C-alpha cells in the first residue's frame, strides 16, 4: 500500500512576516525578526521563500480541487483529535449560566471554550471551528469541540484577507464575525501576547467589527491575572515545521504558544516527523510532479520537520518557561498535572486521512500538551 504523508502548505506562521506598520522594536524585543518593510529578503531568505510560496497559493486556498485539497481533507481529523483531548481531560472552565464547572457531570456540556488558532492561513480550521459556535450562547455545545469563540491569527495580510472574504460566504460564520465571537487578526503571536489582555484585537489591522462581545473571549484567571490574553484552547496546525530557524527556535515559539494558554488548557497541533520514511513520502513522492505529487513543490523542508520526542521536550521546557514570572522561575513544578498526547495520521490515496496509532515516526502526526492547573 502506498502511503503518502504531507503537511500543509507553508504559509501559516511565517515567523518573519510582519506587517508594514508595526514598530520594529516590539518584534525584536520578543526575539523574533521583524522588519518595517515588506521586503523580506533583507531579513530572512527562508521566510521570503515561504511567503512568496503561499502568496501564489492564496487565490486557490479554498478551491476544493486546488493545491490545498489535501489540507482540506485533513481538517475533520483535527476536530476529532481535539474532541479526543477534551474527552480525556477537559479544561476547568468558568461556569456559564446554568452550567456546572465540571463538564463531565452534566451530560450536554456547554459551549464555553475560547480558542486561539495560530497561523490560521486562509482559515480552513478556524472557519470550520467557528461554524460550530452556537448562535445562542446558552445552548448546549453542538459538537464535542465546545467552541464559544475563535480568535485566529496569521502574519500574512493576504491570507487573512482570503480568510475574511471566505468567511462572508457563510451567513452563520458571518454572524459570528460581526458579533466578535470569531475574529481574524493580522498579527503575530508575539504581538498578540504583547497586547493588553482587555483587547485581543491589536496590531495595525484590527478586526473590522471589534464588537462588545470580544471581551467575553478574553479569559480571566484566578489569582494572577496575566497582562496578555489567554485561551482555553490554542491550536497550531501544520505550523511548527515552517518556523524560520535562523530567527527563532521552535522552543521559543512553543513557549510563547503556552503563554497564551490558560491553566488546564490544551495546546494542540500537528506536524511531520523528521525520519527517512517521511523524507521519502513528503519530499520525494508528495512533491513529485503531477500526477504523482499531491503537494505543491517547495512546500516542505525536511530539515525543519520535528520528531515527537523533540516536541515533547520543547513543550516541557516551554511549560516551565511559561510559568516564569519577573521574580520567580517555573521549574519542574510547572509540569505537574500536564499531559502529553500524540497520534500518527496517514494519508491513503483513495481513502483519505486515517489516524493510525503508533505511526507518529512515519510522517504526519497530531500532538497535544495540556497545561497544569
Amino acid at each position, binding site marked *: 500500500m502506498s502511503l503518502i504523508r504531507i503537511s500543509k502548505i507553508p504559509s501559516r506562521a511565517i515567523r518573519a512576516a510582519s506587517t508594514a506598520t508595526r514598530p520594529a522594536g516590539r518584534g525584536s524585543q520578543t526575539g523574533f525578526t521583524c522588519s518595517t518593510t515588506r521586503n523580506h529578503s533583507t531579513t530572512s531568505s527562508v521566510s521570503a521563500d515561504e511567503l512568496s510560496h503561499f502568496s501564489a497559493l492564496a487565490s486557490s486556498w479554498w478551491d*476544493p*480541487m*486546488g493545491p490545498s485539497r489535501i489540507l*482540506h*481533507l485533513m481538517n475533520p481529523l483535527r476536530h476529532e483529535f481535539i474532541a479526543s483531548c477534551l474527552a480525556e481531560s477537559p479544561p476547568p472552565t468558568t461556569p456559564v449560566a446554568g452550567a456546572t464547572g465540571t463538564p463531565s457531570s452534566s451530560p450536554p456540556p456547554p459551549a464555553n471554550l475560547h480558542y486561539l488558532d495560530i497561523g490560521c492561513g486562509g482559515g480552513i480550521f478556524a472557519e470550520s471551528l467557528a461554524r460550530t459556535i452556537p448562535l445562542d450562547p446558552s445552548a448546549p455545545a453542538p459538537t464535542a469541540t465546545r467552541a464559544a469563540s475563535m480568535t485566529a491569527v496569521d502574519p500574512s495580510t493576504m491570507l487573512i484577507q482570503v480568510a475574511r472574504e471566505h468567511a462572508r460566504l457563510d*451567513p452563520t460564520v458571518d454572524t459570528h464575525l460581526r458579533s466578535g465571537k470569531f475574529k481574524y487578526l493580522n498579527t503575530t503571536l508575539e504581538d498578540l501576547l504583547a497586547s493588553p489582555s482587555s483587547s485581543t484585537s491589536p496590531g495595525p489591522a484590527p478586526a473590522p467589527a471589534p464588537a462588545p462581545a470580544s471581551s467575553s473571549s478574553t479569559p480571566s484567571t484566578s489569582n494572577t491575572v496575566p497582562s496578555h490574553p489567554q485561551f482555553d484552547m490554542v491550536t497550531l496546525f501544520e505550523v511548527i515545521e515552517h518556523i524560520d530557524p535562523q530567527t527563532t527556535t521552535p522552543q521559543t515559539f512553543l513557549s510563547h504558544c503556552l503563554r497564551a494558554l490558560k491553566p488546564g488548557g490544551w495546546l494542540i497541533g500537528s506536524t511531520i516527523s523528521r525520519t527517512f520514511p517521511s523524507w521519502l513520502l513528503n519530499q520525494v513522492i508528495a512533491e513529485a510532479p*503531477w500526477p504523482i505529487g499531491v503537494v505543491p513543490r517547495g512546500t516542505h523542508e525536511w530539515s525543519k520537520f520535528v520528531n515527537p520526542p523533540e516536541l515533547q521536550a520543547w513543550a516541557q521546557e516551554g511549560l516551565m518557561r511559561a510559568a516564569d514570572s519577573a521574580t520567580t522561575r517555573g521549574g519542574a513544578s510547572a509540569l505537574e498535572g500536564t499531559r502529553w498526547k500524540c497520534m500518527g495520521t496517514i494519508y491513503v490515496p483513495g481513502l483519505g486521512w486515517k489516524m493510525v496509532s503508533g505511526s507518529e515516526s512515519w510522517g504526519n502526526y497530531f500532538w497535544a500538551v495540556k497545561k497544569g492547573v
Partner: protein
Amino acid sequence: MRLLTQPTLRAYVCPSCRHGVISGRRRLATQAGPTPDIYDVVCVGGGPAGLGLLAALRASPVTSKLKVALIESQDLNKARSWTMDSNQFSNRVSSLTPSSKAFLERIGAWEHIEQERVQDYQEMQVWDGESGSRISFDWTMDTPAFEEMRTVATMTENSNLVRGLLKRIAASGDENLKLFSNTTVAGIENGVDLGPQGPDLSAWPILSLKPSGPTSEAQASSQIAARLLIGADGINSPVRSFADIPTNGWDYNRHGVVATLALADPDTPPFPPYLRTAYQRFLPSLGGPIALLPLPNNHATLVWSTTPEHAAYLKSLPSSAFLAMVNAAFRLSMTDLKFMMDVKTPSSEQTSHEDELSWRVQHTPIPAQVPPMANAVQSGSIASFPLRFRHAAQYISPRVALVGDAAHVIHPLAGQGLNLGIGDVASLSQTIEYAVSHGMDIGDLLTLERYSSERYLTNAKIGGACDLLHKMYNVPGQGPVTWARSFGLDVIDKLPFVKSFLMKNAQG
C-alpha cells in the same frame, strides 16, 4: 453514458485543465431582492426519497437542529390522510430490501408504517420462459436449520411508506421545520452579495416559491435560500437543471403494466405457513419479464414489462381476459403467448382468452414453481408507465445534491429503484451528520463528495446489471444467447456461495 464522476476523474486530469472539466454553471442573479429566509437543507420533492432524507435528518441528534424545508407541489395533507380498504391495495408498490427496511427502522419511520398492509417474502422464483431454466433465491444457505427463513424483501405500498415518513417527521415536532405543501418552485437563481450589511450569498441557491393550491403555506413570491439544496424531484428534476448537471440514458421502448390481483388459494399450502414467494418469468419474445409479488390477504401486485403495443393491448382487455393473459404468461410457451397477444377482442367473444388458456394449458407441461392462479383484478388498478434508464453525470454540485430518481432511473426488473433512492438518502444523511459534527459546511463540495463516491458506482453497478439482464432476456428463440444465459442461471442456482454473493450484492 457517462459513468465517471468528477471526483473519480480528478486524479487523471491535469490541474490546469480542471477548470475546463468543472462545467460552467448557473445563471447570474438578476436583482437584489429582500433578504431570503435561510435554511440549512431545502429538499425539493416530497416523495419517498425526499421525505426519507428529512426524516433521517430529524431523527439524528446531530442533525435534528438543522433548519430544514421541503417543497412539494402536491397536497401533503392528502398523502398524510391516505386510507384504503384492507382488501384493496394501491398499484404503486415497492419491494424494500432488508437494508432499506433497516434504515427505515433506524430513523424511526418503520413503526409509523401500517404493518397490516406490508408483506415480507422469503423466496423468489425466477425462470426463463424460453428455455425453462430456473433459479430460486432464498436465504436458506445462510440460515441455520430450525431458524425462521430470512426475508428476501418486503412489499410496501408507496402511499403507506410516504404516509409513515410524514408521520415520523410530524413526530419530530415542528421546530426548525417547514413543509411547503401545494407549492411549486417558480425559479432557482443564485443569490447576491449583501455587501457590508450581510453575508455574500452569490453562490447560494435562492428558490422562488409559488403556491399551487389553496392550502399552500408559501406566500406569493416568497424566497428561501439553501445552504444545501436537495433535488429529490424526479426524472425531470428542476434542481438538476439549475445545477447544469447533464443526464444520460435511453428509453427502453417498454412499458410496465401494473395491477393489483387477488390470487386463488395455492394447491399445496406453503410450508412453513408464513412462507411467501415472489415470481418472475422472463418472456423474451414479449419484451420483458412478468413478475407477481405478494401482498397481504393472498393478494399480489403485478409488474409486466412489455412493448408499448402489448401494454396497450393488455390495458384494453376486459378484466377476465386480462387475468387469462396474466395466468397464461406464467404458464404457456412463447408461441402460445404471442398467439394470444393477437387474439382480437370483439365484444361478442368475451371468453376467447379464457378458452384459449384452458385449452392450451392442457397441452403444456407446467413447471412446479408457477404462482397460484390470479382470479380477480382490483378495478381501476391496471395502469402502465414507460421504462427508462437515466443516470445523472454527477450527483453533486456546490450546494446541490441529487437523490433518487433525479439522479438515476433504472429498469424495474430487479425491484431496485426505490432501494437505490433509500440508499442515497442513508448515505447523504450520514454525510451531512459527519459534516455537522466536524464543522464542515454541508453544502461544500468537499462535504458532498463523500456522498457521491459512496453512491455513484453502486448505483451505476446495479442500474447496469438491470440493463444487462433486460438486454440478455430480450433475445428470443433458442440461439447461443438463450443457451448461455440458461447455462449461467443453472450454474448459479447450483453454487450456493455464488448465489449468496449475488443476493448480498442485490441487497445493497
